[in-house]
């Protein structure tokens, strides 16, 4: 009997361990931010020691490459004003999870990023209307702000960026070509294929690796995909104001053109891309590859090793693309937490104003981020953004970030990555049809899910 009682007790104890699996989805979030808070240890210490009466700032940042700069700036701000600033950066690809769990805490972020249409849908209720605030007065343009359907200014662009194909012109010349040859897809293709063919004798290849793991796949499922969305948008004659319910897929062929060129003329065999492990940035910096698909935020990282690095548009075989410019837009938009105390909101807005108007602070921001659309912000020295401005000055059209409308963006991109993995392993028509299904039909499906009750 005693033994029976003991075993009943033991089995009860074990059953209890099941609860862990169940409560998981509610509390799993705590696990995700463990990885993201590592850089913020110092900032947290600051919070504790400072006076709590005057409001404080907690910024949940989504750009890992910006973390170092803003941690420094946060410290500096605390030193000069005494206002505690805590900055936490979400690990790459986990921003929305981290935001969700952080927002539920009593010490929720006062400043967070709502960078696209889907974000506005989810978070508009938790953001204050920034219309008429001090930070809104600092803006030099309204072009990068996000409004909800009621016209509330939910989030406010703090910088804008561009992406395209980063090129090392020195290597192009070494290969016996010139940048003037690359004015459209045909030109790009000729140069890239020639370099790839002679990669062994040249000592470098055309494109750096296009890994499909989380740290890199967004370059293709987010950015490169933009060319398809953009040309659809352009054809429709009007800028998208909200997420379209479906795509036509008319420019999938062009997406394929450029995608095929990138994966087949690269340092890495397309079959080895699925699990990643290659460092595309390093490949470009070390002169192992002439082309690198990425954005203006890479300027600070690559310009040291490749001072002549320049950025060209996504040439993909669309008629008239000689007049194409870079993809310009932003996902860097600040929202202020509506549930934060008034003192915290005020402190946060003051901090934002400081970031965009203080000469040193805005200079540091601009160096990392690109151009800040504010009256008193420092001038940008970002070569890629200067390239973008040059294209515009030459009368080229700007490819705006239609990508920002991707519905249920994480699920949508995950399916696209899976399809592209199949395609990379075996570039058959059937596999391309899968990519098309994920790209075009997946849009409509995810749109339906995102807008379901």
């Amino acid at each position, binding site marked *: 009997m005693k033994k029976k009682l003991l075993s009943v007790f033991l*089995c009860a104890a074990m059953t209890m361990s*099941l*609860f862990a699996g169940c*409560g998981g989805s*509610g509390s799993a979030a705590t696990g995700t931010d463990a990885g993201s808070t590592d850089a913020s240890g110092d900032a947290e210490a600051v919070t504790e020691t400072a006076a709590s009466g005057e409001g404080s700032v907690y910024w949940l940042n989504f750009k890992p490459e910006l973390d170092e700069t803003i941690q420094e700036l946060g410290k500096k701000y605390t030193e000069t004003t005494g206002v505690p600033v805590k900055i936490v950066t979400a690990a790459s690809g986990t921003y929305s999870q981290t935001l969700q769990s952080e927002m539920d805490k009593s010490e929720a972020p006062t400043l967070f990023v709502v960078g696209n249409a889907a974000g506005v849908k989810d978070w508009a209720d938790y953001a204050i209307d920034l219309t008429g605030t001090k930070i809104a007065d600092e803006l030099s343009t309204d072009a990068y702000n996000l409004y909800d359907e009621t016209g509330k200014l939910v989030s406010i662009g703090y910088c804008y960026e561009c992406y395209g194909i980063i090129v090392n012109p020195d290597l192009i010349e070494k290969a016996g070509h010139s940048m003037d040859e690359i004015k459209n897809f045909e030109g790009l293709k000729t140069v890239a294929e020639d370099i790839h063919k002679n990669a062994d004798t040249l000592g470098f290849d055309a494109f750096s690796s296009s890994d499909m793991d989380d740290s890199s796949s967004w370059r293709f499922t987010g950015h490169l995909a933009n060319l398809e969305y953009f040309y659809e948008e352009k054809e429709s004659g009007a800028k998208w104001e909200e997420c379209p319910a479906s795509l036509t897929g008319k420019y999938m062929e062009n997406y394929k053109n450029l995608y095929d060129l990138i994966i087949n003329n690269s340092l890495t065999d397309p079959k080895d891309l699925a*699990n990643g492990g290659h460092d595309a940035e390093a490949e470009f910096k070390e002169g192992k590859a002439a082309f690198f698909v990425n954005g203006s935020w890479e300027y600070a990282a690559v310009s040291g090793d490749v001072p002549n690095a320049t950025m060209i548009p996504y040439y993909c075989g669309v008629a008239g693309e000689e007049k194409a410019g870079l993809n310009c837009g932003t996902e860097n938009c600040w929202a202020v937490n509506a549930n934060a105390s008034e003192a915290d909101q005020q402190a946060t807005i003051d901090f934002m104003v400081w970031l965009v108007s203080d000469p040193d602070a805005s200079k540091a921001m601009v160096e990392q981020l690109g151009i800040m659309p504010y009256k008193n912000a420092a001038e940008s020295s970002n070569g890629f953004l200067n390239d973008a401005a040059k294209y515009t000055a030459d009368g080229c059209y700007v490819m705006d970030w239609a990508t920002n409308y991707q519905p249920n963006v994480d699920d949508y991109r995950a*399916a696209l990555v899976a399809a592209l993995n199949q395609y990379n392993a075996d570039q058959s028509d059937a596999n391309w049809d899968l990519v098309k*299904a994920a*790209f075009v039909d*997946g849009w409509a499906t995810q749109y339906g899910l995102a807008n379901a009750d």
Partner: protein
Amino acid sequence: MNKTRSKTPKESIKKHFLLFMGPVLAAFIIGFVWPFIQGIYLSFCKFRLIKDAEFIGFSNYGKAFSDASFRYSFDYTAVFAVVSLVLINVLAFTVAYILTQNIKGSNLFRTVFFMPNLIGGIVLGYIWAMIFDGILSRYSTSILLETKYGFWGLIILMIWQQVGYMMIIYIAGLQAVPDDMIEAASIDGASRSQILFRITIPNVMPSITICSFLGLTNGFKLFDQNLALTGGQPFIIQSDGSAIKTTEMMALNIFNTFYGSNKSATGVAQAKAVLFFILVAGLGLLQLAYTRKREVQQ
């Protein structure tokens, strides 16, 4: 004098049990019981943030049941749990049996076999993904490209991680089998396999109960390794562009539902989690009841 002395500790335990149990109990309630109750409540709600949940009744459960990916992940998880349960236990028992046969260096072997258990699931997942891809890339494929690779890859990973742990439990069980019983059997002319199946195994039935219970529930609850090894890939892209994640197990499905989709999906994920709990608890108890019947009372 003696009598009062022996009673004192018991009485004082009765008096002070809260002092000793209190902290654990409090932690258990704060970290376990309360979130669990809250989780059940949230499964009837629509919410973005937990603090402003809105009660909507049973509709989350309807959506959870009609979700094809959830049903798929249930099937996949069930197959995985059964296969891993059998393989892990057979292997663990075998290793334990061998290591109780007075082999030289058996302590070293035990330590080595147990060590994988000390590594976290996420780390293991990424390491094994690299190992598998190192091999598979020779054949121009990847663990992310074929469901069967993902399945067997996860099985291999789990075996590697779990066998050592289960082995310890089996060793404890095997060492408790009375030597005189085995000696008597061998004097009566029982063969080695007869001794194994008629005497040893019935006597280690309590260990088998524990191990199979742990194996089954571990199989169902698996999350970290699944996330890190394949993350659900490869997907079957259906004609409407939606995707079935062919190696996504239930816990990962719940996680992906919670963070992946629209505003109302958080409640659905919560409903799935409650269903998941009922399922795992039910299965575990059933299995426990069944195996317990076969235990030999000494």
